[in-house]
């Protein structure tokens, strides 16, 4: 079995603050982390590898420093990693990202399961997984929380708003993973050693035979027109007084809202 896990390096959200004067984001000194959902995707791949054997390749598109994210992910027990990095990839939206990842996966060639996190916490689009599946013409299941192998297919459980589905899907296939798959394991000492030494190849647009008009900003149909601070909430009010007075006022407020 050959598994590919897509990894994105994202800013840690606690670090992102708004400059109260300009209303813009202050990202200075913000730590970069592996997108938390991608760690669930990696955990899913590691569980599969433990049960059925195989090889895990990590794939990430990002600036050169995204290599750190790949090294960290290797320490959890993945086997290989590839970084897609090229100035020409910059500014990609989900359409260009899915194209770039698809080109790289075509170059990798053989694979059985592609794992993605449910979404990335910086963009929150949850679009790259399904778009990538479409580009590779693969069947896909989103929000997967449980996976079993059955001959040349998988039996998976997937979450929906109002329940869950049990689905049989033939391989190769793409899955996006939710946290119910299980908390990510702790990296081993051996894994950390491997992560330090491992050679991580960097593939450019040329290496994956990507068309210039389909990558980066040129391949991205969406444009950010405007950025602004969310509308401020009504001024906050701390309800004071004795407990009786407090709940009386509180109930008046609630009752008003319910009307």
């Amino acid at each position: 079995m050959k598994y590919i896990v897509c990894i994105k390096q994202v800013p840690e959200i606690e670090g992102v603050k708004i400059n109260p004067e300009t209303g813009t984001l202050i990202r200075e000194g913000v730590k970069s982390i592996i997108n938390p959902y991608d760690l669930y995707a990696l955990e899913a791949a590691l569980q599969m590898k433990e049960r059925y054997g195989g090889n895990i390749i990590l794939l990430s598109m990002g600036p050169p420093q995204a290599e750190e994210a790949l090294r960290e992910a290797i320490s959890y027990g993945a086997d290989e990693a590839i970084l897609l990095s090229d100035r020409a990839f910059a500014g990609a939206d989900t359409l260009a990202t899915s194209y770039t990842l698809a080109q790289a996966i075509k170059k990798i060639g053989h694979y059985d399961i592609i794992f993605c996190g449910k979404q990335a916490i910086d963009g929150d689009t949850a679009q790259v997984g399904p778009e990538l599946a479409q580009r590779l013409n693969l069947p896909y299941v989103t929000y997967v929380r449980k996976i079993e192998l059955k001959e040349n297919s998988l039996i998976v459980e997937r979450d929906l708003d109002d329940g869950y589905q049990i689905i049989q899907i033939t391989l190769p296939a793409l899955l996006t993973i939710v946290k119910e798959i299980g908390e990510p394991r702790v990296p081993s000492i051996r894994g950390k050693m491997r992560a330090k030494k491992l050679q991580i190849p960097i593939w450019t647009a040329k290496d994956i035979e990507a068309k210039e008009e389909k990558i980066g900003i040129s391949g991205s149909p969406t444009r950010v027109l405007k950025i602004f601070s969310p509308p401020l909430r009504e001024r906050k009010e701390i309800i004071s007084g004795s407990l009786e007075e407090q709940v009386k006022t509180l109930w008046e407020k609630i009752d008003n809202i319910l009307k």
Partner: protein
Amino acid sequence: MELLLDKGKCTGCGDCVDVCPFGAIVLKDKFPVVNEECRLCGLCVKACKEGAISLPEKIKKKPTIKAKDVWIYAETKDGELATVVYELMGKGRELADKLGEKLIAILIGDKISHLAQTLISYGADIVYVAEHPSLSIFNEKRYGTVLIEILKNHCPNIFLAGATSRGRSLIPQIAASLETGLTADCTDLDVDIKKRLLLQTRPAFGGNIMATIACPEHRPQMATVRPHILPRPKPISNHKGKIINFPINEEKIPDIPEIISFVKTEVKGPNLTEADIIIGVGRGIKGPENLKLIEELATLLNAQIGASRAVVDAGWLPPRCQIGQTGLIVSPKLYIACGISGAIQHLVGIQSAKTIIAINKDPEAPIFNIANYGIIGDLFEVIPALIKEIKKARGID
């Protein structure tokens, strides 16, 4: 396209660094340097008093002019229209009227044709009905194949769907297949009538900031819209529309993946993403044995119960109750946070609640920064007293 800097004009003031929402500009040797995070939004161009930064636009290809009309995917659940569909119809009608275009809805499923008339009464000019037994259960590949075929034949100007778990899973493959832009989980939509552009507003970076996004050169302009944010419209009396049956060619419907079964979660009332009132429970509840207090309040207020990550991780409430960054985004009329300190990851999930009430012992808890009303106090005193007050007001013993 690339940002160009005129070093002769640049004074190294750093205004561009401050204004960049992506943190893509840093000063190096007194001159701004742009990194990979740049999305070419152009804010720095506007911010530069010296006019030292420019963004030369390539000659743009004109969008397909024949693209027209506002299309909506009318998601169904248990043989009914999903509530977000009504909200989309209201907004869709408004946009279509502004553009002077038609509003067209697509229904997919089995035994759903009776819903077409409902869609017409909410403003649809045309309803496409794709009805077939093989479409009885939601399946992205099957529904996607049908949608792609309909859309490829018609070239909509705008295509909207609900940002439900089903919608967000189904729609991206359509965008990839049509090679167009898709904006996820929008909280507001409008149109630029002159440019015929859909203006799609959504929270970015965990709701810290709002972004308005457009898809200038590709059609359709596609967006999923967060449920429960747009107002639910009233039916339009005497609105007339046409129903067109879309023939299903069974051979074209893929049989992979196969849905073996669907297990519905037994939940009383609406799910959290559609609830009007939610009581959020945090670590302050101390243990699962104390949840009955919250349940009593929830019953009185006809509210649903949600939770912070800590409560779910402790196993006191199931994962489907988790609100926040790695859980659900909710938008109720009223959110009552009980014993929730308000870590940013949780606040992200309740940002679009209309009113937030916080009850917490700790006056420094960040939840008070975004709450409209707060009580600094022990929830084990405040909630029983509130329950008593409600019962008194309603004349219940």
